[in-house]
Protein backbone atom coordinates (compact mmCIF):
# COMPACT_ATOMS: atom_id res chain seq x y z
CA UNK A 1 0.00 0.00 0.00
CA UNK A 2 2.76 2.35 -0.86
CA UNK A 3 1.46 5.77 -1.81
CA UNK A 4 3.01 7.53 -4.74
CA UNK A 5 5.20 10.48 -3.87
CA UNK A 6 3.04 12.79 -5.97
CA UNK A 7 -0.13 11.95 -4.11
CA UNK A 8 1.62 12.40 -0.81
CA UNK A 9 2.76 15.84 -1.93
CA UNK A 10 -0.78 16.80 -2.95
CA UNK A 11 -2.01 15.69 0.45
CA UNK A 12 0.55 17.83 2.24
CA UNK A 13 -0.44 20.82 0.11
CA UNK A 14 -4.11 20.26 0.86
CA UNK A 15 -3.41 19.90 4.58
CA UNK A 16 -1.37 23.12 4.58
CA UNK A 17 -4.14 24.95 2.70
CA UNK A 18 -6.65 23.56 5.17
CA UNK A 19 -4.53 24.81 8.06
CA UNK A 20 -4.34 28.33 6.64
CA UNK A 21 -8.03 28.46 5.75
CA UNK A 22 -9.20 27.41 9.22
CA UNK A 23 -7.05 29.97 10.99
CA UNK A 24 -9.32 32.95 11.71
CA UNK A 25 -6.36 35.36 12.05
CA UNK A 26 -5.51 34.91 8.39
CA UNK A 27 -8.97 36.09 7.37
CA UNK A 28 -8.92 38.93 9.86
CA UNK A 29 -5.58 40.07 8.49
CA UNK A 30 -6.81 40.02 4.89
CA UNK A 31 -10.11 41.74 5.71
CA UNK A 32 -8.53 44.47 7.81
CA UNK A 33 -5.87 45.04 5.16
CA UNK A 34 -8.62 45.38 2.55
CA UNK A 35 -10.58 47.92 4.59
CA UNK A 36 -7.52 49.98 5.51
CA UNK A 37 -6.40 49.89 1.88
CA UNK A 38 -9.74 51.26 0.66
CA UNK A 39 -9.71 53.99 3.31
CA UNK A 40 -6.18 55.01 2.41
CA UNK A 41 -6.91 54.94 -1.31
CA UNK A 42 -9.89 57.18 -0.64
CA UNK A 43 -7.61 59.52 1.30
CA UNK A 44 -5.00 59.56 -1.46
CA UNK A 45 -7.65 60.16 -4.08
CA UNK A 46 -9.15 63.07 -2.17
CA UNK A 47 -5.69 64.48 -1.61
CA UNK A 48 -4.82 64.36 -5.27
CA UNK A 49 -8.20 65.90 -6.18
CA UNK A 50 -7.67 68.70 -3.64
CA UNK A 51 -4.17 69.41 -4.76
CA UNK A 52 -5.62 69.81 -8.22
CA UNK A 53 -2.32 68.79 -9.66
CA UNK A 54 -2.24 68.61 -13.40
CA UNK A 55 -3.65 65.23 -14.40
CA UNK A 56 -3.07 62.94 -11.41
CA UNK A 57 -2.40 59.42 -12.62
CA UNK A 58 -5.07 56.84 -11.90
CA UNK A 59 -2.44 54.16 -11.40
CA UNK A 60 -0.23 56.30 -9.20
CA UNK A 61 -3.17 57.19 -6.99
CA UNK A 62 -4.70 53.70 -6.99
CA UNK A 63 -1.40 52.11 -6.02
CA UNK A 64 -0.29 54.91 -3.69
CA UNK A 65 -1.17 52.89 -0.61
CA UNK A 66 1.10 50.00 -1.66
CA UNK A 67 3.59 50.92 1.04
CA UNK A 68 0.88 50.45 3.67
CA UNK A 69 -0.66 47.49 1.90
CA UNK A 70 2.60 45.57 2.16
CA UNK A 71 2.33 45.71 5.96
CA UNK A 72 -0.83 43.62 5.76
CA UNK A 73 0.91 41.06 3.61
CA UNK A 74 3.98 41.01 5.85
CA UNK A 75 1.63 40.16 8.72
CA UNK A 76 -0.05 37.50 6.60
CA UNK A 77 3.28 35.82 5.93
CA UNK A 78 4.40 36.00 9.55
CA UNK A 79 1.06 34.64 10.79
CA UNK A 80 1.20 31.71 8.41
CA UNK A 81 4.70 30.77 9.51
CA UNK A 82 4.50 31.50 13.23
CA UNK A 83 1.08 29.93 13.78
CA UNK A 84 2.88 26.58 13.79
CA UNK A 85 4.63 27.57 16.97
CA UNK A 86 1.50 28.53 18.87
CA UNK A 87 -0.04 25.93 21.12
CA UNK A 88 2.68 23.42 20.23
CA UNK A 89 1.10 22.71 16.85
CA UNK A 90 4.54 22.14 15.34
CA UNK A 91 4.77 18.81 17.22
CA UNK A 92 1.54 17.64 15.64
CA UNK A 93 2.62 18.85 12.22
CA UNK A 94 5.93 17.01 12.34
CA UNK A 95 4.49 13.75 13.67
CA UNK A 96 1.93 13.79 10.87
CA UNK A 97 4.27 15.09 8.13
CA UNK A 98 7.85 14.27 9.17
CA UNK A 99 9.30 15.24 5.80
CA UNK A 100 10.37 18.69 6.88
CA UNK A 101 11.70 20.15 3.66
CA UNK A 102 8.66 19.12 1.67
CA UNK A 103 6.30 20.25 4.41
CA UNK A 104 7.72 23.77 4.69
CA UNK A 105 7.93 24.12 0.93
CA UNK A 106 4.27 23.13 0.60
CA UNK A 107 3.35 25.60 3.32
CA UNK A 108 4.89 28.40 1.28
CA UNK A 109 3.15 27.12 -1.83
CA UNK A 110 -0.20 27.06 -0.04
CA UNK A 111 0.45 30.58 1.19
CA UNK A 112 1.21 31.67 -2.38
CA UNK A 113 -2.07 30.18 -3.59
CA UNK A 114 -3.95 32.25 -1.03
CA UNK A 115 -1.91 35.41 -1.44
CA UNK A 116 -2.10 35.80 -5.22
CA UNK A 117 -5.90 36.21 -5.46
CA UNK A 118 -6.01 38.33 -2.30
CA UNK A 119 -3.27 40.66 -3.55
CA UNK A 120 -4.85 40.94 -6.97
CA UNK A 121 -8.30 41.77 -5.63
CA UNK A 122 -6.88 44.35 -3.23
CA UNK A 123 -4.71 46.16 -5.74
CA UNK A 124 -7.37 46.02 -8.45
CA UNK A 125 -10.03 47.45 -6.14
CA UNK A 126 -7.74 50.36 -5.30
CA UNK A 127 -7.09 51.15 -8.94
CA UNK A 128 -10.80 50.77 -9.81
CA UNK A 129 -11.75 53.15 -7.01
CA UNK A 130 -9.19 55.72 -8.11
CA UNK A 131 -10.34 55.35 -11.70
CA UNK A 132 -13.94 55.95 -10.70
CA UNK A 133 -13.19 58.99 -8.51
CA UNK A 134 -10.69 60.57 -10.86
CA UNK A 135 -12.76 59.97 -13.97
CA UNK A 136 -12.50 63.05 -16.14
CA UNK A 137 -9.70 64.60 -14.08
CA UNK A 138 -7.00 62.13 -14.79
CA UNK A 139 -4.91 61.46 -17.78
CA UNK A 140 -6.03 58.38 -19.65
CA UNK A 141 -4.27 55.11 -19.09
CA UNK A 142 -3.82 52.30 -21.53
CA UNK A 143 -5.46 48.99 -20.48
CA UNK A 144 -2.19 47.13 -20.92
CA UNK A 145 -0.47 49.55 -18.54
CA UNK A 146 -3.13 48.87 -15.93
CA UNK A 147 -2.78 45.13 -16.31
CA UNK A 148 0.98 45.33 -16.17
CA UNK A 149 0.93 47.45 -13.02
CA UNK A 150 -1.64 45.19 -11.33
CA UNK A 151 0.32 42.06 -12.15
CA UNK A 152 3.49 43.73 -10.91
CA UNK A 153 1.82 44.82 -7.67
CA UNK A 154 0.34 41.36 -7.13
CA UNK A 155 3.71 39.77 -7.72
CA UNK A 156 5.41 42.24 -5.40
CA UNK A 157 2.96 41.58 -2.57
CA UNK A 158 3.12 37.81 -3.05
CA UNK A 159 6.90 37.72 -3.00
CA UNK A 160 6.95 40.01 0.03
CA UNK A 161 4.54 37.65 1.80
CA UNK A 162 6.81 34.69 1.04
CA UNK A 163 9.84 36.59 2.28
CA UNK A 164 8.02 37.45 5.51
CA UNK A 165 6.91 33.85 5.96
CA UNK A 166 10.52 32.72 5.60
CA UNK A 167 11.67 35.23 8.23
CA UNK A 168 8.80 34.12 10.45
CA UNK A 169 9.76 30.47 10.03
CA UNK A 170 13.37 31.30 10.90
CA UNK A 171 12.51 33.29 14.03
CA UNK A 172 9.47 31.22 15.09
CA UNK A 173 8.08 34.16 17.09
CA UNK A 174 5.54 36.66 15.79
CA UNK A 175 6.66 39.85 17.50
CA UNK A 176 10.41 39.68 16.76
CA UNK A 177 9.65 38.87 13.12
CA UNK A 178 7.19 41.76 12.98
CA UNK A 179 9.66 44.19 14.56
CA UNK A 180 12.42 43.22 12.15
CA UNK A 181 10.28 43.34 9.01
CA UNK A 182 8.32 46.49 9.85
CA UNK A 183 11.52 48.08 11.11
CA UNK A 184 13.20 47.37 7.82
CA UNK A 185 10.32 48.21 5.47
CA UNK A 186 9.06 51.29 7.28
CA UNK A 187 11.95 52.77 9.24
CA UNK A 188 15.34 51.71 7.91
CA UNK A 189 14.53 51.53 4.22
CA UNK A 190 12.80 54.94 3.85
CA UNK A 191 15.54 56.71 5.80
CA UNK A 192 18.37 55.12 3.91
CA UNK A 193 16.85 55.56 0.47
CA UNK A 194 19.49 57.02 -1.77
CA UNK A 195 22.27 55.81 0.50
CA UNK A 196 21.82 52.12 -0.28
CA UNK A 197 21.86 50.57 -3.74
CA UNK A 198 18.52 49.51 -5.18
CA UNK A 199 19.16 45.82 -4.68
CA UNK A 200 17.14 45.41 -1.50
CA UNK A 201 13.85 43.50 -1.64
CA UNK A 202 11.59 46.52 -1.32
CA UNK A 203 13.59 49.04 -3.32
CA UNK A 204 14.08 46.61 -6.21
CA UNK A 205 10.56 45.21 -5.97
CA UNK A 206 9.00 48.65 -6.27
CA UNK A 207 9.94 48.75 -9.93
CA UNK A 208 7.55 45.87 -10.52
CA UNK A 209 4.55 48.18 -10.30
CA UNK A 210 5.92 51.71 -10.70
CA UNK A 211 5.14 53.18 -14.09
CA UNK A 212 8.15 53.99 -16.25
CA UNK A 213 6.75 57.51 -16.64
CA UNK A 214 6.45 58.27 -12.95
CA UNK A 215 9.02 61.02 -12.99
CA UNK A 216 11.97 59.68 -11.08
CA UNK A 217 14.87 58.11 -12.82
CA UNK A 218 14.08 54.44 -13.40
CA UNK A 219 17.07 52.40 -12.48
CA UNK A 220 15.49 49.00 -13.01
CA UNK A 221 12.93 47.56 -15.39
CA UNK A 222 9.94 45.69 -13.92
CA UNK A 223 11.48 42.38 -14.93
CA UNK A 224 14.81 43.23 -13.28
CA UNK A 225 12.99 44.34 -10.13
CA UNK A 226 10.94 41.15 -10.06
CA UNK A 227 14.07 39.08 -10.58
CA UNK A 228 15.94 40.69 -7.69
CA UNK A 229 12.98 40.42 -5.31
CA UNK A 230 12.47 36.82 -6.38
CA UNK A 231 16.10 36.01 -5.62
CA UNK A 232 15.64 37.46 -2.13
CA UNK A 233 12.42 35.57 -1.45
CA UNK A 234 13.55 32.26 -2.87
CA UNK A 235 16.88 32.33 -1.08
CA UNK A 236 15.29 33.25 2.25
CA UNK A 237 12.74 30.44 1.85
CA UNK A 238 15.64 28.09 1.03
CA UNK A 239 17.55 29.21 4.11
CA UNK A 240 14.40 28.75 6.21
CA UNK A 241 13.98 25.21 4.87
CA UNK A 242 17.62 24.29 5.51
CA UNK A 243 17.49 25.64 9.06
CA UNK A 244 14.14 23.94 9.65
CA UNK A 245 15.60 20.60 8.64
CA UNK A 246 18.64 20.94 10.85
CA UNK A 247 17.26 22.30 14.06
CA UNK A 248 15.18 20.74 16.80
CA UNK A 249 11.49 21.47 16.46
Amino acid at each position, binding site marked *: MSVSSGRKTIRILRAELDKLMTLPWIWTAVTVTFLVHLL*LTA*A*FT*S*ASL*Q*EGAAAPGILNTGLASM*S*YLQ*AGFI*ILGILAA*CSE*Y*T*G*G*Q*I*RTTLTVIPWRGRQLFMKHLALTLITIPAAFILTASGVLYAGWRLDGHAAGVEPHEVIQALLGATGYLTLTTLLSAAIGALL*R*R*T*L*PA*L*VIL*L*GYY*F*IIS*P*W*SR*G*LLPAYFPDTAGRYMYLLPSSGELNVLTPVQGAGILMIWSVSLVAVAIVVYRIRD*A
Partner: protein
Amino acid sequence: MKAFHAEISKLLSLPGIWLALLIGALAPAVIAALDAIAEKEAIIAGVSTRLPEMGYSGLGLGVQGVIILGVLAVSSEYRTESSEGAGGQQISTSLMVVSSRLQLFLAKAGAVSVISILLCILAVILIVPTTRYILGDYAPLLEWTRLAGAVCYWTFTALLAFGLTLLTKQGMIPLTMLMINSSLVSFSVLLAKVTKLAFYLPDRAGMEMFMFTKNSASTEVTGSLFDSYHTPFTGGLIMFAWVAVLLGIAAIVFHRRDVAA
Protein backbone atom coordinates in the same frame (compact mmCIF):
# COMPACT_ATOMS: atom_id res chain seq x y z
CA MET B 1 5.76 50.38 45.56
CA LYS B 2 6.45 46.68 45.88
CA ALA B 3 4.28 46.02 42.85
CA PHE B 4 6.19 48.69 40.93
CA HIS B 5 9.55 47.10 41.74
CA ALA B 6 8.15 43.72 40.72
CA GLU B 7 7.02 45.14 37.38
CA ILE B 8 10.44 46.69 36.73
CA SER B 9 12.20 43.41 37.42
CA LYS B 10 9.63 41.48 35.37
CA LEU B 11 10.27 43.79 32.43
CA LEU B 12 14.03 43.75 32.69
CA SER B 13 14.10 39.94 32.78
CA LEU B 14 12.51 39.75 29.32
CA PRO B 15 15.14 39.38 26.59
CA GLY B 16 12.88 41.28 24.19
CA ILE B 17 12.99 44.34 26.42
CA TRP B 18 16.75 44.55 26.11
CA LEU B 19 16.38 44.55 22.36
CA ALA B 20 13.77 47.30 22.71
CA LEU B 21 16.16 49.31 24.89
CA LEU B 22 18.96 48.86 22.39
CA ILE B 23 16.72 50.03 19.54
CA GLY B 24 15.42 52.87 21.67
CA ALA B 25 18.90 54.12 22.46
CA LEU B 26 20.38 53.72 18.98
CA ALA B 27 17.54 54.35 16.51
CA PRO B 28 17.22 58.10 17.24
CA ALA B 29 20.94 58.65 16.86
CA VAL B 30 21.02 56.71 13.60
CA ILE B 31 18.02 58.57 12.20
CA ALA B 32 19.42 61.90 13.33
CA ALA B 33 22.71 60.99 11.64
CA LEU B 34 21.03 60.04 8.36
CA ASP B 35 18.96 63.20 8.45
CA ALA B 36 22.00 65.33 9.19
CA ILE B 37 23.98 63.74 6.37
CA ALA B 38 21.13 64.46 3.97
CA GLU B 39 20.85 68.11 5.04
CA LYS B 40 24.53 68.79 5.58
CA GLU B 41 25.18 70.58 2.32
CA ALA B 42 22.15 72.82 2.61
CA ILE B 43 23.05 73.71 6.17
CA ILE B 44 26.64 74.61 5.32
CA ALA B 45 25.40 76.67 2.39
CA GLY B 46 23.10 78.41 4.85
CA VAL B 47 19.95 77.69 2.82
CA SER B 48 18.50 74.92 4.97
CA THR B 49 15.17 75.66 6.55
CA ARG B 50 15.45 72.53 8.59
CA LEU B 51 18.43 73.46 10.74
CA PRO B 52 16.35 73.76 13.95
CA GLU B 53 15.11 70.21 13.44
CA MET B 54 18.52 68.58 13.39
CA GLY B 55 18.66 65.95 16.12
CA TYR B 56 14.98 66.30 17.00
CA SER B 57 13.92 64.39 13.92
CA GLY B 58 15.70 61.40 15.43
CA LEU B 59 13.68 61.76 18.61
CA GLY B 60 10.44 62.23 16.70
CA LEU B 61 10.86 59.31 14.34
CA GLY B 62 12.99 57.00 16.48
CA VAL B 63 10.38 56.05 19.03
CA GLN B 64 10.24 52.39 17.95
CA GLY B 65 12.10 51.34 21.10
CA VAL B 66 9.44 52.62 23.49
CA ILE B 67 6.66 51.29 21.26
CA ILE B 68 8.14 47.81 21.57
CA LEU B 69 8.60 48.40 25.29
CA GLY B 70 4.95 49.32 25.82
CA VAL B 71 3.69 46.43 23.71
CA LEU B 72 5.96 43.81 25.30
CA ALA B 73 5.11 44.93 28.82
CA VAL B 74 1.57 43.67 28.22
CA SER B 75 1.87 41.02 25.53
CA SER B 76 4.45 39.11 27.58
CA GLU B 77 1.69 38.52 30.11
CA TYR B 78 -0.59 37.01 27.50
CA ARG B 79 1.84 35.18 25.26
CA THR B 80 0.99 31.65 24.18
CA GLU B 81 3.84 31.03 21.80
CA SER B 82 6.13 28.42 23.20
CA SER B 83 7.57 25.29 21.70
CA GLU B 84 6.41 23.30 24.68
CA GLY B 85 2.96 24.71 24.24
CA ALA B 86 1.95 24.64 27.87
CA GLY B 87 -0.06 27.76 27.14
CA GLY B 88 0.34 29.07 30.68
CA GLN B 89 -0.33 32.79 30.69
CA GLN B 90 1.68 34.80 33.14
CA ILE B 91 -1.22 37.18 33.73
CA SER B 92 -2.92 34.63 36.01
CA THR B 93 0.20 34.46 38.17
CA SER B 94 0.58 38.24 38.17
CA LEU B 95 -2.99 38.69 39.36
CA MET B 96 -2.49 36.21 42.15
CA VAL B 97 0.60 38.02 43.38
CA VAL B 98 -0.90 41.50 43.11
CA SER B 99 -4.57 40.87 43.61
CA SER B 100 -5.71 44.43 43.00
CA ARG B 101 -6.01 44.87 39.29
CA LEU B 102 -5.84 48.63 39.51
CA GLN B 103 -2.61 48.37 41.47
CA LEU B 104 -1.13 45.99 38.90
CA PHE B 105 -2.22 48.33 36.12
CA LEU B 106 -0.68 51.39 37.77
CA ALA B 107 2.52 49.54 38.63
CA LYS B 108 2.92 48.39 35.05
CA ALA B 109 2.14 51.79 33.57
CA GLY B 110 4.57 53.34 36.06
CA ALA B 111 7.32 50.90 35.12
CA VAL B 112 6.79 51.60 31.41
CA SER B 113 6.88 55.37 32.00
CA VAL B 114 10.04 55.33 34.09
CA ILE B 115 11.92 53.14 31.63
CA SER B 116 10.75 55.36 28.73
CA ILE B 117 11.96 58.53 30.44
CA LEU B 118 15.37 57.04 31.15
CA LEU B 119 15.58 55.64 27.64
CA CYS B 120 14.78 59.02 26.09
CA ILE B 121 17.46 60.72 28.16
CA LEU B 122 19.94 58.08 27.02
CA ALA B 123 18.88 58.65 23.41
CA VAL B 124 19.45 62.40 23.75
CA ILE B 125 22.90 61.78 25.21
CA LEU B 126 23.74 59.73 22.13
CA ILE B 127 22.24 62.19 19.64
CA VAL B 128 24.26 65.19 20.78
CA PRO B 129 27.72 63.84 19.84
CA THR B 130 26.32 62.30 16.66
CA THR B 131 24.98 65.53 15.19
CA ARG B 132 28.05 67.38 16.43
CA TYR B 133 30.30 64.85 14.70
CA ILE B 134 28.46 65.17 11.38
CA LEU B 135 27.61 68.87 11.33
CA GLY B 136 30.55 70.15 13.33
CA ASP B 137 30.08 73.74 14.41
CA TYR B 138 26.83 73.99 12.48
CA ALA B 139 25.11 71.60 14.86
CA PRO B 140 22.31 73.39 16.67
CA LEU B 141 22.24 73.46 20.44
CA LEU B 142 19.47 71.38 21.93
CA GLU B 143 17.13 73.40 24.11
CA TRP B 144 15.91 72.09 27.44
CA THR B 145 12.26 72.89 26.88
CA ARG B 146 12.17 71.03 23.61
CA LEU B 147 14.04 68.07 25.10
CA ALA B 148 11.49 67.92 27.90
CA GLY B 149 8.82 67.84 25.21
CA ALA B 150 10.59 64.93 23.55
CA VAL B 151 10.72 63.04 26.85
CA CYS B 152 6.97 63.59 27.23
CA TYR B 153 6.40 62.44 23.66
CA TRP B 154 8.31 59.20 24.26
CA THR B 155 6.54 58.45 27.51
CA PHE B 156 3.12 59.16 26.04
CA THR B 157 3.89 56.99 23.03
CA ALA B 158 4.97 54.11 25.28
CA LEU B 159 1.77 54.49 27.29
CA LEU B 160 -0.34 54.51 24.13
CA ALA B 161 1.34 51.25 23.07
CA PHE B 162 0.75 49.88 26.55
CA GLY B 163 -2.94 50.83 26.59
CA LEU B 164 -3.64 49.58 23.06
CA THR B 165 -1.99 46.23 23.79
CA LEU B 166 -3.95 45.86 27.00
CA LEU B 167 -7.17 46.40 25.07
CA THR B 168 -6.33 43.98 22.26
CA LYS B 169 -4.46 41.49 24.47
CA GLN B 170 -1.95 40.81 21.69
CA GLY B 171 0.97 42.75 20.37
CA MET B 172 0.56 42.49 16.63
CA ILE B 173 -2.05 45.15 15.93
CA PRO B 174 -0.68 47.90 18.20
CA LEU B 175 2.88 47.20 17.10
CA THR B 176 1.97 47.45 13.42
CA MET B 177 -0.16 50.56 13.83
CA LEU B 178 2.34 52.45 15.93
CA MET B 179 5.46 51.36 14.05
CA ILE B 180 4.00 52.45 10.72
CA ASN B 181 2.72 55.63 12.24
CA SER B 182 6.16 56.46 13.58
CA SER B 183 7.63 56.09 10.10
CA LEU B 184 8.09 58.54 7.25
CA VAL B 185 4.88 57.24 5.68
CA SER B 186 2.86 57.88 8.83
CA PHE B 187 -0.93 57.68 8.51
CA SER B 188 -1.25 60.97 10.33
CA VAL B 189 0.82 62.82 7.76
CA LEU B 190 -1.27 61.36 4.98
CA LEU B 191 -4.54 62.20 6.70
CA ALA B 192 -3.31 65.73 7.41
CA LYS B 193 -3.41 66.30 3.67
CA VAL B 194 -7.12 65.45 3.65
CA THR B 195 -8.47 66.91 6.86
CA LYS B 196 -7.25 69.33 9.50
CA LEU B 197 -8.68 67.00 12.14
CA ALA B 198 -5.58 64.86 11.61
CA PHE B 199 -3.60 67.50 13.51
CA TYR B 200 -5.44 66.33 16.59
CA LEU B 201 -4.16 62.75 16.26
CA PRO B 202 -1.92 61.89 19.20
CA ASP B 203 1.37 61.48 17.39
CA ARG B 204 0.92 64.51 15.15
CA ALA B 205 -0.09 66.73 18.05
CA GLY B 206 2.55 65.26 20.35
CA MET B 207 5.39 65.99 17.98
CA GLU B 208 4.54 69.67 18.22
CA MET B 209 6.04 69.56 21.70
CA PHE B 210 9.49 69.62 20.17
CA MET B 211 9.39 69.43 16.39
CA PHE B 212 8.25 72.61 14.77
CA THR B 213 9.99 75.07 12.58
CA LYS B 214 7.47 77.20 10.76
CA ASN B 215 5.84 79.15 13.48
CA SER B 216 2.09 79.63 13.89
CA ALA B 217 -0.76 78.34 11.80
CA SER B 218 -0.86 81.47 9.69
CA THR B 219 1.47 80.07 7.07
CA GLU B 220 -0.06 77.75 4.57
CA VAL B 221 -0.41 74.22 5.84
CA THR B 222 1.32 71.80 3.53
CA GLY B 223 0.80 68.71 5.63
CA SER B 224 4.53 68.31 6.07
CA LEU B 225 5.70 66.60 9.18
CA PHE B 226 7.55 69.73 10.16
CA ASP B 227 4.77 72.28 9.98
CA SER B 228 3.54 73.63 13.23
CA TYR B 229 -0.17 73.72 13.85
CA HIS B 230 -0.44 73.86 17.63
CA THR B 231 1.76 75.50 20.22
CA PRO B 232 4.04 73.02 21.98
CA PHE B 233 1.87 73.23 25.07
CA THR B 234 -1.47 72.55 23.38
CA GLY B 235 0.17 69.82 21.33
CA GLY B 236 1.31 68.12 24.52
CA LEU B 237 -2.09 68.61 26.08
CA ILE B 238 -3.86 66.99 23.13
CA MET B 239 -1.57 63.97 23.22
CA PHE B 240 -1.96 63.73 26.98
CA ALA B 241 -5.74 63.75 26.58
CA TRP B 242 -5.47 60.82 24.18
CA VAL B 243 -3.26 58.91 26.61
CA ALA B 244 -5.56 59.65 29.55
CA VAL B 245 -8.69 58.54 27.70
CA LEU B 246 -7.06 55.40 26.31
CA LEU B 247 -5.56 54.38 29.64
CA GLY B 248 -8.88 55.08 31.34
CA ILE B 249 -10.71 52.76 28.95
CA ALA B 250 -7.94 50.16 29.23
CA ALA B 251 -8.08 50.30 33.03
CA ILE B 252 -11.85 49.80 33.06
CA VAL B 253 -11.70 46.93 30.56
CA PHE B 254 -8.80 45.30 32.38
CA HIS B 255 -10.68 45.62 35.66
CA ARG B 256 -13.85 44.01 34.35
CA ARG B 257 -12.49 41.39 31.97
CA ASP B 258 -12.15 37.74 32.94
CA VAL B 259 -8.54 36.65 32.71
CA ALA B 260 -9.43 33.74 30.47
CA ALA B 261 -11.65 35.75 28.16
